[in-house]
Each structure stands twice: as C-alpha cells, then as structure tokens.
C-alpha cells in the first residue's frame, strides 16, 4: 500500500471530527413527523384554524374504540371499567362511553357553567330567584337523587350544570345498552377517548394507544374480549409503523445490495469502507446545518436526503479507487479504467450495468 503518513493522519482526523459532529447532531436534532409541514404556510385566520384543527382539533385527537366478544352486560362493565381506569391518565383528556354523569364534565369546563347555560339570559339572579332555587334544592336533597347532587350544590346552587348537560344531550346518539354506547347490532361496546397528543404525533399517539391496550389487557383477564381502536391517531401510528418497517426492510436490502456490488467491483473491503466516509460526512454536515438553522428535520426529508446522498457518494467512491489519480481527460462514460492493469480495477460489466450521466461525472471530479 502506498499511503503516506499525512494521508493516514488526515483520515484519522476526519473520522474523529466526523464522530464528534455526529454525536453533537444526534444529541440536538429533533426529527419531526408532522405532515402539516408539507402544506403551504397559512396566511388567513381561516387557514390557520383549519391547519390547527387538522392536527390538534378535538376531532383529530379522538380515538374510537370498540370492545366485543362477550354478552352485552359484560361488555358494558368492561367499557365502564376502561373509562374509569383511563380517566386519570395524562395521555387522555375526555374518555367516555356515553354514560351521563355529573362528574363526567371536566373540571376545567366547570367555571363556565353559567356562560354555557341559557338560564341567566332571561333570568335575573336576584334574591327571589335564588331563594326559590335553594328551596327546590332542599327538596332535591330529600329526594332519592339527593346523595348524587349533594357534592355539587355548594358550588352550583341553581344546578346550571344539569341544564348544560341536558342541552348537550345529542338528538341522535349511538344505541345504548346498560347505559353505555353500543353499535347498531348491540354486539360491540363503543367508547371514545380524546388523546392529549395531536394526531400527527405518532410517538405520543403510540404511547396513548399502548396505554389503552395495556389497560384493556389488564381488564381482559381471560382473553375472550377483543379491542379495536380507530381514529386519526391510530391511523398515524399505523402509517408510521408501516412506513418505518418498509423503509427499514428496503433500506437494509439496498445497503446489502450496494455493499455486495461494491465488493464485487473492488474485490477489497478497504474502498467499500472509505466510500462510506463522504456519505457520512455529507449527512452529518447536512443535519448539522439543519439543526443549527431550523427547529427540526422531518423524517421524510431525512429519508429522501439520505437516499440522494447514498447514490451520489457511493458513486463517487466507486469511481475513485484509492490510490489511482483521476485523469482529467477521462470521459464521462468511462469513470473506470477499462484496462489499466490495476488489481483494483472493477469488472468490466460495471460501466455497462451502471451507465453514468454527466452529473455523476462532475461529482467524481469535484
């Protein structure tokens, strides 16, 4: 081998710098998955609202779950237990199976009960009205519903919350059995869970769905029940999982193929390793620039970027056998010396199998 000491030192120095920058990048880089980044920036308030709703609006954060595989009453009990178990979770906001109860209203909405109810639009909150209401509440306390209303009365003496709930009761709602929502046939108990994570955050969506499944598994002790989860969040997890799986499989196949091809071409391991150096350098440089100038890099950008880099840099390495100078006169269609007699010269089929365009040739010389 005819490598000089400076070139070896350069190689070592390069590798060290590369690893240092690589470490810095992987510590700081945020890989985003929000597909809205590919939409044009919103300019009007309506567009901004639309984009917000697509990603973070209640409709996009709602997961619909169904439970099947047992008698309706058992399904209703499981549905109820699931709602109870999930309602304290930080991954979920509202979790409901249609059961109406006074404690189903989230605490943060309670202060708005007088705004939401129509009572005070027509009624003065004066001494007479309040006296009437308090008298009615005393009767409520003595009624069979008394114990149910008692905790609420000190903060809501006119029972606005009940009026709000009555107004919100939908005209059409899913089939009900044993107080909880069921599908039309009455075979599957339905419930909805609002995730705190936006729809386009597959990582946090996955955490939420995993929690949902784990909680369900703990209730489904004999394994006879089946849980199905759907909704934008579930789709984004599914999409992300499938994309990641396919990308990994195809990427691995491509890498193996490339290495095999290079090994066939060079019949030595050295050039194959060296040809990864420009790839890694370009990748790290690109990511470093993005992480310094922008907030995050999108996963898709990352994937496409590396694909492009791969094809470029491996081509460069392939056409620059170490130790052999590049003759300036080399034509664009013959990057490889056809008959230089060098041991490192590639097999003659390479140029024919991989016809090179002028851009690649430029890359080689640059």
């Amino acid at each position, binding site marked *: 081998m005819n490598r000089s000491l400076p070139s070896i030192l350069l190689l070592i120095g390069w590798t060290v710098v590369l690893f240092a920058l690589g470490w810095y990048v992987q510590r700081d880089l945020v890989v985003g998955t929000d597909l809205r980044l590919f939409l044009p920036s919103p300019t009007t308030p309506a567009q901004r609202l639309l984009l917000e709703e697509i990603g973070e609006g209640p409709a996009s954060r709602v997961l619909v779950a169904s439970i099947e595989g047992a008698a309706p009453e058992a399904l209703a009990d499981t549905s109820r237990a699931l709602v109870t178990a999930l309602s304290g979770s930080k991954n979920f906001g509202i979790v409901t199976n249609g*059961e*109406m*109860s006074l404690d189903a209203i989230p605490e943060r909405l309670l202060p708005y009960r007088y705004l939401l109810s129509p009572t005070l639009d027509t009624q003065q909150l004066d001494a007479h009205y309040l006296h009437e209401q308090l008298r*009615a509440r*005393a*009767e409520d*306390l*003595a*009624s*069979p*519903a*008394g*114990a*149910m209303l*008692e*905790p609420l*009365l*000190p903060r809501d003496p006119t029972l606005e919350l009940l009026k709000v709930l009555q107004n919100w009761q939908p005209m059409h709602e899913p089939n009900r059995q*044993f*107080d909880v929502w069921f599908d039309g046939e009455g075979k599957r108990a339905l419930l909805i869970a609002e995730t705190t994570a936006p729809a386009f955050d597959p990582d946090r969506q996955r955490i939420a769905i995993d929690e949902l499944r784990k909680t369900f598994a703990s209730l489904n002790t004999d394994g006879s029940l089946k849980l199905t989860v759907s909704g934008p969040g579930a789709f984004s997890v599914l999409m992300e999982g499938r994309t990641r799986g396919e990308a990994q499989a195809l990427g691995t196949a491509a890498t193996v193929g490339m290495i095999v091809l290079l090994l066939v071409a060079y019949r030595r391991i050295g050039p194959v390793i060296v040809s990864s150096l420009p790839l890694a350098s370009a990748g790290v440089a690109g990511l470093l620039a993005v992480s310094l100038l922008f907030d995050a890099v999108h996963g898709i950008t990352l994937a496409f970027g590396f694909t492009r880099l791969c094809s470029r840099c491996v081509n460069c390495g392939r056409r620059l056998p170490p130790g052999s100078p590049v003759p300036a006169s080399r034509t664009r269609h013959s990057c490889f010396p056809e008959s230089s007699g060098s041991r490192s010269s590639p097999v003659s089929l390479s140029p024919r199998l991989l016809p090179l365009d002028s851009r690649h040739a430029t890359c080689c010389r640059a």
Partner: protein
Amino acid sequence: MSLLTQMAPLAAAAELDAAALIQRLAKPSPATIDFAEVRFSALLKQPLIVSGTLGYAGPTTLDRHVTRPYREDTEIRGESVRVSREGEPVRSFALKRAPELSGLLTAFTALLAGDHDSVRREFEIAASGDETLWQLKLTPRDARVRKHVPGIQIHGRRDLPRCFTIINDNGGASVMLLGGASQAQLPQPLTREWLERFCASPDA
C-alpha cells in the same frame, strides 16, 4: 364492661341468626309501608324530614310517594328511576348513577322478600341483639359501592324493621323510619344521636 360480656355470645352466633332473622322479615308482595325520612347533610342547619309511603312489588320495583311537606313521586323500575314533583318536569336517571339509592333498593327489597342469599350476595352482614330487638349492619361487598355507601344499618323489633340508616360518603346520613316508627313525634332540634337512641329503644 358487663354489657360487653353479655353481647359477646350474641355476636358470635351472628351469621346463623341473620339468615333466620331475614327469612322472618318476608312480607307478601305487593306491600305498602309508611315511612318518614330524616336527611342529615353538612349543607343543612336542620335535617330535612319528608314522609309518605313506600310501595314494594318485587325485587326491582319500588315506589316512593312523598306526601308531606310536599308531593313527590319516585318510581324505580329495573334500572330506571323517575322522580316527579308537582309543577316540575320529570327527572329520570339510571339507578347505577345513584349508589345510595341502589343500595337501599337492594337491601330493602331483599329484606321484604326475606331473601337472605340476595342480601349476602351484595353485602357483608353483621347481626346483633336478640329476636325481639335486633340490629343488622350491611357493608357493600363492591368497593365502588362501598365508596359511596360505607354502610347500611337496620334496627328492628321481632319481624318488623323499624329504622333504615344509610351513611353516605359526604358525611351525611339518611334515616328512614318505617311503619309505626314513622308516626313518632320527633323533637326539635332533631339530632342523629336522638334517632339512634330512638331506633334502638325497646319501647314506643
């Protein structure tokens, strides 16, 4: 001290006693019984007292008609509860939403049916006293119900229940005086201690 030693053998024989006692309480259905309910709450300076009749016609059916000091009708049919009061829209809710009422219904109807097994399925039973003056303490087996209704106490004489006391999770209580006891003259101010003494007293 001597009272405690006297009570000990009674407590030991409790479980056997309870089954026989509950069977003796069976009344033919349908049955109607007068009641007066005294409700204590932290929100109230004085307890609320309403009276009327309870109609029982099977294990999932109970009617509660309040006639004094106002009229109010409650119908429990299976899982549905409907409360109607003069001049107000009918309110209805699911029995599961009102654990206190649900506990009362189960205990009350099972006792009137003399159905010891049903009572034992839902509650842990502790009986004390003797045949002429007895006391049943029911503790819900389901932890969720127990959270809202820590216990139900029933005082009675021979084959008649006299007082149904339900303690709720808000620290309040509802004492239902049944049959002849509902006609008793209640003192002013009325306290829980007085009612407890009244329910456990052998005379009147």
